[in-house]
């Protein structure tokens, strides 16, 4: 069945039908993202002092991704204008660039930004033990300056120290083998005291242990987690340094400065995954849904770019219809850009 009014305007609406459709869809999308943004507001307003993290995301990378989306918004509107001017090769060029920009945005998110977060370790310290970790937290210094306290120690998890029940030794050994963990038993201890870390490099160089693996290790019968040894994030490595008071434009990853945290002092630990905090929960929810929109936009633009029926081949048969299709995907793409214009400051900067 052919949909009427794909080129000409419908007399009563003054619009071709697809345009009416996309605007109704975008209206519903505003409510969808609006709901998530209001969830962000609630979570942030209710967070106790120090529990809303700052400076955990890489600002230059986020700003770069913003620039990529803005550039693609320009190119997609140029692709549409090229079709209106009936310049097919220009259309192919601008649309091709838009598709590449969208793909690049996703690659940066999925191959660089997100995986880094899943490797990053963070431990929230119990309120009664906070004082004990002053050398990593620097709360006296922050109090003097009237800044919110720090409650978390984070960085790159190098090793975990465990005590294992010798009676359950086999289960532990299976786990260590499964996860390619290197164990250094302390022979002098009556209980089986072990330091574990993960082998990742081909050269046998130890790369630390992923927070998720540490969580699973703790669930192995007979295993008791005693302490975490980590390379501290710059903020915990030099907590009294005024440089650490506020987030910086240039993101610096974990240092080699060693830190040790007792498991008994930790209220909660995890990677920078959604469960880490309300901040990361709402960050991954909103950027994840936004990422799905980018993916959808890329696929639809690719469909209109490829020399197929319903795609770029329409140019010969009905160029105005193709222009309208591109205008509609363009409207969707600008909306995706528009959402990111809010996402970038609220998660990366504020």
């Amino acid at each position: 069945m052919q949909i009427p009014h794909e080129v000409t305007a419908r007399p009563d609406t003054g619009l071709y039908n697809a345009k009416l459709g996309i605007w109704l869809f975008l209206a519903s999308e505003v409510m969808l993202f609006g709901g998530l943004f209001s969830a962000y507001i609630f979570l942030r307003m209710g967070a106790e002092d120090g529990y809303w993290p700052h400076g955990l995301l890489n600002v230059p990378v986020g700003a770069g991704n913003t620039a990529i989306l803005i550039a693609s918004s320009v190119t997609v509107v140029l692709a549409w204008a090229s079709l209106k001017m009936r310049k097919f090769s220009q259309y192919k060029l601008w649309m091709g660039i838009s598709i590449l920009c969208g793909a690049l945005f996703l690659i940066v998110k999925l191959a660089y930004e997100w995986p880094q977060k899943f490797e990053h370790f963070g431990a929230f310290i119990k309120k009664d033990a906070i004082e004990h970790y002053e050398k990593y937290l620097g709360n006296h210094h922050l109090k003097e300056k009237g800044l919110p306290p720090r409650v978390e120690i984070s960085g790159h998890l190098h090793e975990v120290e465990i005590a294992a029940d010798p009676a359950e030794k086999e289960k532990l050994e299976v786990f260590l083998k499964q996860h390619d963990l290197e164990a250094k038993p302390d022979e002098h201890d009556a209980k089986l005291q072990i330091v574990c870390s993960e082998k990742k490099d081909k050269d046998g160089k130890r790369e630390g242990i992923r927070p998720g693996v540490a969580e699973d290790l703790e669930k192995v019968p007979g295993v008791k987690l005693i302490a975490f040894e980590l390379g501290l994030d710059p903020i915990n490595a030099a907590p009294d340094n005024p440089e650490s008071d506020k987030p910086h434009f240039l993101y610096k990853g974990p240092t080699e400065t060693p830190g040790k945290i007792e498991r008994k002092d930790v209220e909660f630990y995890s990677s920078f995954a959604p469960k880490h905090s309300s901040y990361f929960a709402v960050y991954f929810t909103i950027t994840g849904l936004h990422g799905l929109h980018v993916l959808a936009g890329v696929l639809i633009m690719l469909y209109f770019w490829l020399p197929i029926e319903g795609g770029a081949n329409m140019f010969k048969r009905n160029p105005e219809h193709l222009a309208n299709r591109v205008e509609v995907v363009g409207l969707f793409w600008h909306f995706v850009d528009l959402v990111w214009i809010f996402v970038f400051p609220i998660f990366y900067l504020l």
Partner: protein
Amino acid sequence: MSQAHDHGKEITPGTAHEPATGGDHPHFDMHLGLYLGVGGFLLVATAVTVWLSYVDFDKMFGGHGWNIIIAMIVATVKVGFVGAIFMHLKGEKKLVWQFLYFTLFFVAGLFLLTLLNYSDPIFGTSHAHH
């Protein structure tokens, strides 16, 4: 449907079916500069957003939350340009605007609900999962 008269008709370029805007070269050539200009403005505005986030407005004006307000104002201006120029809302048909008024009304209502948090706060949202 009353629009059925369009069914099956092949519409070819240059026929009476094609709207007057199609192939109107000078009109779109004029807009190309505008699109590039808005793109450039958005890039500069992004840099400004980043820069402003490192300025301590609370210290400057007193109170707190100024950085959030200022960042949202800049973002709204940016979004205004995306909507008006890229999404051609400037000069768009009345019906589209009516959709938007409707949406803005409801989304504003949704955000006003978050203000209730001032009178009836939800605490401990930072660690609700424990």
